[in-house]
């Protein structure tokens, strides 16, 4: 443990750390290292868990439903979006389809991790898949980047997942309790809390033209299709936005390769 702490204090010496890890990282050490590496990301998730729990009942999801969602679905953005859809009166298939679309990004993560789970039995892969959140993906990707030895890396993953999971469930519970204590919170403008959270999540993506185009088209189409039944407009708008972004991206790429061809 002490050797582990010492090497961690000198991250510039990654080679040394790798050597050390190959020598003696036990499953137990990996587990706690995984939990520790996830703490900064957990801090960021705390307000989400609490706001989710608080908004559940005003959105029309019972306290039990909110708890069950955090326990069994365990997907922050999708859970938030389901609340928005519930309060807008969306139909059940629309909420489930939207959940699927929003979570498609996890397929991207799992594609990245396949080489690291290939040797593990299915029961491990099932547990790891269930715990594959944005935060745990970020933490374990870093671990795989720093250390080649993956003999016990699945314990690191498990540590990260369980730290994230227990925090998410606890924060949901806390939020539900807060919501029960102050049932008038929606009147204070808490419905806007969801919008402002989403704005804070979207803006960091806006780094290039294709992303701006995707977002503007998705927003405009959401307004244009607002009258569609069952909140289907959301899915239409999202697909239009994604198609626009992808088209812009492919156009830019084509233009770049053409420009490159002229100069070479």
């Amino acid at each position, binding site marked *: 443990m002490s050797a582990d702490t010492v090497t961690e204090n000198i991250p510039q010496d990654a080679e040394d750390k790798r050597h050390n890890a190959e020598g003696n990282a036990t499953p137990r050490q990996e587990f706690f290292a995984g939990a520790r590496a996830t703490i900064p990301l957990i801090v960021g998730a705390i307000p989400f868990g609490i706001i989710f729990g608080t908004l559940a009942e005003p959105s029309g999801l019972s306290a039990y439903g909110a708890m069950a969602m955090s326990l069994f679905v365990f997907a922050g953005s999708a859970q938030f979006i389901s609340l928005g859809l*519930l309060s807008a009166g969306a139909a059940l298939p629309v909420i489930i389809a939207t959940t699927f679309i929003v979570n498609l990004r996890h397929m991207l993560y799992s594609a990245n991790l396949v080489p690291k789970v290939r040797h593990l039995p299915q029961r491990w892969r*099932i547990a790891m898949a269930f715990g594959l959140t944005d935060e745990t993906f970020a933490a374990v990707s870093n671990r795989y980047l720093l250390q080649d030895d993956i003999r016990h890396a699945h314990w690191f993953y498990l540590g990260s997942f369980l730290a994230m999971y227990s925090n998410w469930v606890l924060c949901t519970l806390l939020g539900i309790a807060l919501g029960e204590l102050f049932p008038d919170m929606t009147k204070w403008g808490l419905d806007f809390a969801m919008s*402002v959270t989403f704005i804070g999540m979207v803006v960091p993506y806006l780094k290039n033209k294709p992303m701006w185009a995707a977002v503007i088209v998705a927003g405009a189409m959401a307004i244009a299709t607002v009258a569609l039944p069952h909140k289907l407009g959301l899915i239409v708008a999202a697909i239009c936005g994604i198609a626009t972004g*992808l088209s812009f991206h492919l156009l830019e790429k084509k233009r770049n390769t053409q420009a490159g061809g002229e100069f070479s």
Partner: protein
Amino acid sequence: MNEVLLIIGMFLATFSTRYLLFAVAGRVHFPEWLSTGLSFVPPAVLTAIVFPAVLMPEGEMWFSLDNPWLLAGIGAVIIALVRKDLLTTIVGGMAIFITLKFVVGLG
């Protein structure tokens, strides 16, 4: 709304996207256009939720300077662009909204 069905459905929709590739764990080649396309998914979906929420907070189009949802939404975008920190954006955006709606009395 049947909450049991809702949670089973959302569980399946979430778990399938996370487990599918782990389950087969063979040689799955992910085409580049698909990865790029997926990267547009979260911002597109979130924006499609936010636009109607701030532009039509009470069900009808309200594109005007006395709409506190719209003003606070614009404020939040500016804070997010400048500070690039989620918690600052949430707190700042909420502060603007509460000030406009309950102190200034807009809406």
